[in-house]
């Protein structure tokens, strides 16, 4: 350091190993005896669906969680990693999916943040900037060190995150779904950088659920499913099909009772729907779907591929930038949520506490939401509390909602009962089109069965249902047809009888299928 002011001290790591890692959260075994190792000069990918335990394992390696069992070895020696700071001192760095940058500071300031200055109490930003430029040249990470972060594109911000980790001398880099936020061109650039890093002797852990990326980048792949290791194999022995069925778990299918139902007209149709997501990037890239009355169309896909935005477009909450929505043949594009609800749409949103209910409102206040301005709940200017109480009691009973009273604030209810309440509210309105997003996420088995039965009942009543779920079992047991969404595009639509874990897994990993439509 004293002789060469611009050198980065690389903390050399030849191998990072995790042995028999177990991590429990209340009610969940997130990691069940996982073994994982990565060596200098290789990319080891970690593949799995949501909830497979990828992020938990990485957070343990990075010191954000402590394992309940198992040990971590760096260069063959057992170490305890108590915090991210510990991890950094062992040469382990992480590039988070959600960037941790201060938007108003420059690239240089962000990278220097929290590090001692080479000039003691004086800032050494010019020194830092020079080092950043050197690093950027080595790893193909073009960046202007003087630019404030808020001016940078998402791809550039990611470069800053990577530089931040490299600057701190990390030789193991954990990349948590780094391509999720990038455009295809930016992905190419990132891959060039990653190849360069491997050539320089870094060890990379690449977390993804995209099959082609894993195939293109890795030397080795470990597949996780529901917290357990499905297997580890060198890339030469892997192909997309094999990885797909490993990722979704098993080869056998559980089918539930699915009586024949006469299907009618197309009652929900999406034509070329495009929309921008929360980050301002295009999250839906021309979605076409047609669902008939009496039909449940299951929309499968790994989360964050546009499902939520699609549901919001249908519910009138997100304006599409192109395309049309037809309900029962009527063009309803651009209608307000209120108008759509009156037209017979019911929507069960995925975040039931955030989008679905008002926590401080009572059970009955939540049950009447949307219909609160009409008889029998309101007459003239006042609300009719007698009718509200009567109807609430009836719904609480029919839908088996466990609550001390109808005046109890809903935030005191369990998740299953809150979901039953939402279901009661949405179904009792007699919808003709139902959009159900992750209707059983986080529910116990009994509540799950209950919710699924209620949704199937709607099908028999001729309701047109779009079921959005990350739970393949749910999709397979409820749907008549299954569509798979990947990065805002429909990869294909298959009949329930033609669905296999292999073809669904391939589509979920980004492979387009030829389908009948």
């Amino acid at each position, binding site marked *: 350091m004293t002789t060469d002011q611009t050198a980065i001290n690389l903390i050399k790591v030849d191998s990072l190993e995790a042995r028999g890692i177990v991590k429990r959260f209340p009610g969940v075994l997130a990691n069940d005896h996982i073994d994982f190792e990565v060596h200098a000069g290789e990319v080891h990918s970690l593949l799995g669906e949501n909830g497979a335990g990828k992020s938990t394992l990485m957070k343990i390696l990075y010191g954000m969680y402590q394992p309940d069992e198992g040990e971590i070895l760096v260069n063959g020696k057992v170490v305890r990693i108590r915090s991210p700071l510990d991890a950094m001192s062992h040469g382990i760095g992480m590039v988070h999916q959600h960037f941790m940058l201060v938007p108003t500071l420059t690239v240089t300031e962000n990278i220097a943040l929290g590090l001692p200055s080479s000039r003691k109490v004086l800032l050494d930003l010019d020194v830092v900037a020079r080092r950043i430029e050197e690093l950027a040249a080595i790893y193909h990470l073009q960046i202007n060190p003087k630019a404030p972060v808020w001016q940078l594109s998402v791809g550039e911000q990611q470069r800053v995150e990577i530089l931040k980790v490299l600057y701190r001398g990390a030789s193991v880099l954990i990349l948590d779904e780094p391509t999720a936020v990038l455009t295809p061109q930016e992905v190419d650039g990132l891959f060039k950088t990653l190849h360069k890093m491997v050539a320089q002797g870094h060890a990379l852990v690449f977390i993804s659920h995209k099959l082609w990326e894993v195939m293109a980048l890795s030397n080795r792949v470990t597949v996780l499913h529901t917290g357990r290791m499905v297997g580890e194999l060198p890339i030469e022995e892997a192909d997309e099909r094999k990885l797909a069925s490993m990722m979704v778990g098993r080869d056998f299918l559980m089918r539930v009772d699915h009586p024949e139902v006469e299907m009618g007209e197309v009652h929900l149709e999406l034509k070329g729907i495009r929309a921008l997501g929360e980050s301002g990037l295009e999250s839906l890239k021309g979605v076409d779907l047609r669902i008939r009355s009496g039909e449940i169309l299951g929309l499968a896909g790994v989360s964050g591929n546009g499902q939520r935005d699609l549901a919001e477009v249908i519910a009138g909450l997100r304006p599409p930038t192109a395309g049309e929505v037809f309900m029962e043949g009527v063009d309803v594009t651009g209608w307000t949520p*209120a108008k759509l609800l009156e037209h017979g749409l019911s929507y069960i949103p995925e975040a039931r506490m955030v989008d679905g209910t008002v926590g401080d409102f009572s059970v009955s206040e939540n049950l009447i939401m949307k219909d609160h301005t009409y008889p029998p709940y309101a007459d003239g200017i*006042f*609300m009719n509390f007698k009718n509200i109480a009567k109807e609430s009691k009836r719904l609480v009973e029919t839908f088996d909602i466990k609550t001390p009273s109808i005046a109890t604030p809903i935030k005191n209810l369990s998740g299953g009962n809150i979901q039953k309440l939402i279901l009661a509210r949405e179904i009792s309105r007699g919808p003709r089109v139902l959009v159900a997003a992750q209707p059983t996420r986080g529910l116990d088995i009994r509540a799950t069965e209950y919710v699924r039965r209620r949704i199937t009942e709607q099908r028999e009543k001729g309701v047109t249902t779009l079921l959005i779920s990350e739970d393949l079992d749910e999709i397979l047991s409820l749907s008549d047809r299954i569509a798979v969404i990947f990065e805002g595009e429909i990869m294909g639509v298959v009949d329930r009888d033609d669905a296999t874990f292999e073809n669904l897994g391939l589509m979920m990993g980004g492979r387009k299928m030829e389908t009948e439509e």
Partner: protein
Amino acid sequence: MRYKLEKRPVQNPWLQTLAVFIGLAAALGVSCLLIISAGANVGEALTAIFNGSFGDWDALAETLVQATPLIFCGMAIVIAFRARVWNIGAEGQFFAGAMVAILVAMNLSFLPRPLLIFAIILGAMVGGAIWGGIPGFLKARFNANEIITTVMMNYIIMFFLSYLLSSVWREPGHFFLQTARIPGAAQLPVVASGTRLHFGFILSLISGLFAYLLLWKTPLGYEIRAVGINPVAAQYKGISIKKITILTMIISGAIAGLAGGSEVTGLHFRLRLDISTGYGYTGIIIALLGRLHPVGVIIAAIFFGALVNGSTSMQIITGVPVALVYCVEAIVLIFVLSADIISRYRIRRVRDVK
């Protein structure tokens, strides 16, 4: 073994009520220190405040006179804050209401008295509604931060009024910045003879009843509360947040405007710049102390009215300056709100898990 501070999963209403009293007691304690530091006898000072505010009918009536604008402004704030619309502009809406009331009183005095008073009340509400509705519209249409716009609107109307009072509205031939006295027919009737307690107090109670019915008995109030607690869910269920924002600001502004109309036609009979001692801002304190509930607002407003009223006696008898009472108001707010927040938490002993 260690201790952990955690949020109570279920709030205990008794504990929250108790917290208010503990907060008040603590505030009283600190206030006594202030009285002592001002060189007075605590017992004497407190007795003077109490006798001056509740000691006899006259004192009580004057306390209610002081409480009237606070009840109005508190209600205005309750309605806005329930929708999580941060109306800091009740002060400006107060003056907008007062200005329209003066216009009506001066120009329509030929009307029969009941009709004239009705027109004054309506005019005051319209004035406040417009002054509140503008920031409401700006928020709904351009997402302009209502905290900033409502405060700015306060300045606009104060300087505009100041200009009017120094020019066209100034009482002819007089030095002070004030309008002429309004005719007797335009003055709100006194409701307790021999005191200054006027019809505005009754109106303020009606505004409280209105706020209660609106918020808890009508679909619109339901939507206001839903938007305030969870705007996302409200929107998902078809409630238009823009519509609620504008309506809430209009209603809130109308009530604050009525406060101005009531003060100017019930108490001062002319418009000056000092007819409000910051009622619009004190209304925020009142609303928060009253837990955003009309009944709480009335209690808090009478309490503050009593402090202001009683402080005059305190100054006369003990020489402690009236300004002390404004300190006390702030101290009460800090302690009661702190006690309220603390009551939402509990300390639990946890065993370390090996």
